[in-house]
């Protein structure tokens, strides 16, 4: 019998479709009966959506220009070489 704690442990695999058929069915059964775990899975899904939609590492403009300059120099010496 799958307990709530087990479900929290494998919830991430469940939402990614990484569980084997038997485990996936156990999770589905549990979710039918357990409102708290339904909330948990829903919230975990939402968290993943937030992470996916989040533009990470904002590169500061100064660093981007520094990279541009480094590339420009390399291009110049490639042109000469």
């Amino acid at each position, binding site marked *: 019998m799958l307990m709530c704690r087990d479900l*929290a442990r494998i919830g*991430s695999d469940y939402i990614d479709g990484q569980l084997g058929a038997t485990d996936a069915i156990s999770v589905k059964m549990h979710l039918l009966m357990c409102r708290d775990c339904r909330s948990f899975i829903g*919230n975990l899904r939402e968290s993943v959506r937030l992470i996916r939609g*989040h533009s990470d590492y904002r590169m500061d403009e100064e660093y*981007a220009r520094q990279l541009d300059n480094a590339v420009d120099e390399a291009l110049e010496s490639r042109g000469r070489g």
Partner: protein
Amino acid sequence: MQTAQSIDESDLVSALKAGEQRAFHQAVRNYSPGMLAVARYYLDRSSAEDVVQETWVNVVEAIQKFEGRSGLKTWLHRIVANRCKNRLRTANREVSSEFGEELEPGIADRFQSGGRWATPPKLRFEEHAESLMENEALSDCLDKHLSALPEQQRSAVMLYEAHQHKAEDVCNILDISASNLRVLIHRARQKIYLMVEDFQETGEC
């Protein structure tokens, strides 16, 4: 999300091979954030920035050898990872590997000894989904929490979720097993889960 996906990659690669400056500047802007995410897995911020810069200088020549067997992004990420590993080897340092438990302490503490919830989830995020995505304070908070994740968790989650690499590629780039990757991703997601829950409840980061 990256805009890189919207441009035709083979056009970009041809322009890079031809040495077009504008193409390089565009590539720098599109790909460097992901490359930094990889480098930060191994190194501190300033060394990571150095490695990304060295990589671009190297790519000006090395792009001629790019055959398109993998995507450009994966190719760049592999170069970055290899350069980082070399640096660590020279410095005689190992990447520490802390994989361990699958449950974040903040979640593991919320169960009774029998395994049922003692402190169940209080809110359903999805009922607030729209406002969540548009909430600027939350987005800042997310930013803060993502950058505070342990290096390995952050790189894994960034490559897998934000940059949408396949699990196999992430394992390859970071040199970890599939099961280690799963643990890193589980833990990072749970941390963000706890952050969102806290934010929803208190309105504060």
